[in-house]
């Protein structure tokens, strides 16, 4: 045992000293941080876009302007919702709040369910000022003041020498250098690039598409119809989408009016809805409503499956490269004069296992440190989720399946490593195993959607998949027979694999030359001594 621990300690220390280990430990938190940081910054960092509206019809320009101001309001509202969630007084189990709070809840709920109608409400209720006033009693005392986001789309006047009544073709030709970024426009004394040109041709009303005019749409001769949206950057779809929605809204209102339908009635009908409550049968009535944390808990096992997979992949690298180093450098012979192959194998398993666990602990620690240092709205949600996670029974599942999975696969990989003299040889031998390992990752989301379905149950009983699949199902209360049965099969298989790997390891470790053929491996498995 002493010798096993010595070997494990050396393996561990040598792995910890490698660059690869530190890259592995640091990369995940850094990438996580960067993604988080950049994505939250990026939303507000989009540069101000300047657009030009030329309305020759004199009819739809208003709709476009509305669309753009609506888009801005949507931004403001989104920001405000975030602000509200972050700075709201924690109600906890307090009795149902009074009317204004109800209104606030309604607002949040509306926003979550139907953004467009919420937006309309928002605007009709006085927008931001009204909302701020309404929310004030429910904000924490230390809440920072709300700063609305700046406008992202700003209208700009056409150049003085452009004839805005010229045919669209001519206008576009004239504006092309501006749109391509070759020329800039003057706005408030500074030269700014033109992001988009919105051109409403005079005869645009004739391009309105109705259900009965589908045929005409198909016979289109390729010339642009309707409102023309010209922009070099077509990936930022917020502006054209908003314009499209607003135009359609305007057109439809005109249609309603033309057919003598009450617009307000239509609106009210459109906003009618029947809520759908998602409920968890495992809980008491009243608590049964599935919250965001519950949803997360359903999906959390997938995160754990990923964690097992990534950690296993890292350990595999160490197992193979360290065994092969000892073999190709012939260190193995000195070792085998000092320790038994069994001790050597166990030492390696423990040492590299400890490396893997250290990596995971380092990730978790850095995650917590990150949450401490970087408290914002999103991280507050993550903290809540973590609380749910830590109080659930997923952690013991994870620890158990992680260890079993590691022991099972590490045994196989060590045996393979002992048969090879170079990493190249080993890589061709581990290829089939990697393929097998990918299966549970590929099927992960299917299993999560139907955790007690046939596929999930069948896969659970295949020992190589058991740790992944059962981890995946852990939150869905799988039948007891599955939990106990697969655990017994898994543990027995792991013991058998380690025992057989030990045999191969003992004999393979002194081999030189080509990796053995299947027949030889079979012979090794049956032979007791070298």
């Amino acid at each position, binding site marked *: 045992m002493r*010798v096993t621990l*010595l*070997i494990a300690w*050396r393996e561990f220390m*040598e792995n910890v*000293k*490698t660059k690869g280990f530190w890259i592995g430990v640091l990369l995940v938190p850094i990438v996580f941080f960067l993604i988080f940081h950049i994505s939250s910054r990026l939303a507000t960092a989009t540069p101000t876009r300047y657009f030009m509206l030329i309305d020759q019809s004199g009819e739809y320009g208003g709709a476009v302007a509305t669309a753009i101001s609506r888009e801005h309001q949507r931004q403001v509202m989104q920001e405000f919702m975030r602000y509200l969630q972050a700075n709201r007084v924690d109600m906890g189990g307090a009795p149902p709040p009074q009317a204004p709070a109800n209104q606030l809840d309604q607002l949040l709920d509306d926003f979550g369910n139907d953004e467009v109608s919420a937006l309309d409400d928002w605007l009709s209720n006085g927008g931001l000022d009204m909302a701020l006033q309404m929310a004030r009693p429910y904000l924490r005392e230390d809440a920072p003041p709300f700063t609305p986001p700046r406008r992202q789309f700003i209208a700009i006047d056409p150049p003085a020498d452009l004839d805005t009544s010229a045919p669209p073709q001519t206008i576009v030709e004239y504006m092309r250098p501006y749109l391509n970024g070759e020329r800039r426009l003057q706005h408030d004394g500074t030269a700014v690039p033109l992001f988009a040109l919105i051109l409403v041709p005079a005869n645009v009303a004739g391009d309105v598409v109705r259900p009965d005019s589908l045929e005409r749409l198909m016979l289109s001769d390729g010339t642009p119809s309707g409102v023309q949206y010209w922009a070099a950057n077509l990936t930022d779809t917020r502006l054209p989408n908003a314009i499209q929605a607003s135009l359609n809204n305007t057109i439809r209102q005109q249609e309603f009016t033309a057919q003598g339908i009450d617009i307000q009635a239509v609106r009210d009908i459109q906003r009618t809805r029947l809520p759908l409550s998602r409920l968890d049968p495992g809980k008491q009535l009243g608590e049964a409503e599935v919250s965001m944390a519950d949803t997360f808990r359903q999906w959390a096992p997938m995160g754990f499956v990923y964690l097992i997979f990534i950690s296993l992949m890292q350990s595999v690298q160490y197992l193979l490269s360290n065994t092969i*180093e*000892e073999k*190709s*450098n*012939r*260190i193995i*012979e*000195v*070792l*085998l*004069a*000092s*320790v*038994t192959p069994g001790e050597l194998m166990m030492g390696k398993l423990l040492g590299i296992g400890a490396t893997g666990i250290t990596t995971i602990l380092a990730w978790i620690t850095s995650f917590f440190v990150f949450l401490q240092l970087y408290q914002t709205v999103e991280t507050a949600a993550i903290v809540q989720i973590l609380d749910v996670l830590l109080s659930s029974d997923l952690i013991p599942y994870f620890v158990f399946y992680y260890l079993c999975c590691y022991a099972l696969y590490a045994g196989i990989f060590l045996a393979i490593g002992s048969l090879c003299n170079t990493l190249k040889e080993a890589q061709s031998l581990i290829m089939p195993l990697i393929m097998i390992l990918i299966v549970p990752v590929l099927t992960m989301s299917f299993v999560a959607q139907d955790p007690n379905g046939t596929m999930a149950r069948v896969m659970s009983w295949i020992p190589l998949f058991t740790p992944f699949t059962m981890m995946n199902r852990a939150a869905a209360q799988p039948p007891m027979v599955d939990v106990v049965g697969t655990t017994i099969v898994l543990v027995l298989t792991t013991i058998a694999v380690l025992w057989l790997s030990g045999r191969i390891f003992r004999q393979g470790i*002194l081999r030189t030359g080509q990796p053995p053929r299947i027949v030889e491996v079979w012979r090794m498995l049956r032979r007791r*001594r*070298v």
Partner: protein
Amino acid sequence: MSTPVLTLENVTKRYGDFTAVDQINLSIPQGSVYGFLGPNGAGKTTTIRMILDIIRPDTGHIDVLGHRSAMDVRHRIGYLPEEKGLYKKMKVWAIISYFATLKGMSRSAARHKAFELLERYGLKDFAESSIESLSKGMGQKVQVLASIAHEPELVILDEPFSGLDPVNQEVLEQLIKDLSANGQTVIFSTHIMQHAERLCQRLLLITQGRKVFDGTVSEAHAIIPRRVVLETRGDIHSVRALDGVLSVQEQPPEDGSARANGIRQWELYVKEQADPQQILQHCFENGVSLSRFDFTQASLHDVFVHLVGKEAREHNFR
């Protein structure tokens, strides 16, 4: 003589149809320096691996330090394998200390011993270097130190001299002498006869898995008759008639100049008790003027070639 440290009885190892080691018997007394000699592929390394219980013999018995398996007494054995290698990233002192702790030494004692050995054998300045920064020869010295740091009673060195420069070969010879002086038994294999000649009390010579000689160095020398080397322009055929001379053979000249002068080199094998003075006197009396008279004992090299040369060559061409 005290009880043997190592005994092999009828040890045989086969790999399929190939017999790597064939019926070897051996007994090594305590405190001796024992040489395993033999051509490449003779079975030296296989024998050593069997002694260490890394592989098992098919038949026969091995007794190491009074135990059936070397694994039972592995803390009392030190081993340097034929193919050397160390963990590349580890520090020199750390690797010596690591192997010593595997052999049962405490961490602090092992560390202390590592630095002591490095200092004594001239590697003190490299103690903190990593193995990969060392030259091959230095790495090999480190590995030798790693195999003896736990002060084993039995040290087995497989080809310890290969790859070392002459200076370091001497350092290693000194190290083996130190071990022997300390009462430790040393077995080493080599095919460089000079080392065996200088260091060993006893020799084992094997070829194609079979033992062809086992005895002291002087016994080995006695296998080949003593010889006298003569260089002369004269006719020395009359020497043949002398009592004590077994054979006379002309040798190819060692360099071209001798032949150009008409000087020819002769090799005379003489009986063990013959007096070389007699040959010298005979030449003098018969007016044969000698440019060289060399009375030498056959070297171990000659013994080696004599015993295994033919087979070894055949083996190589197979």
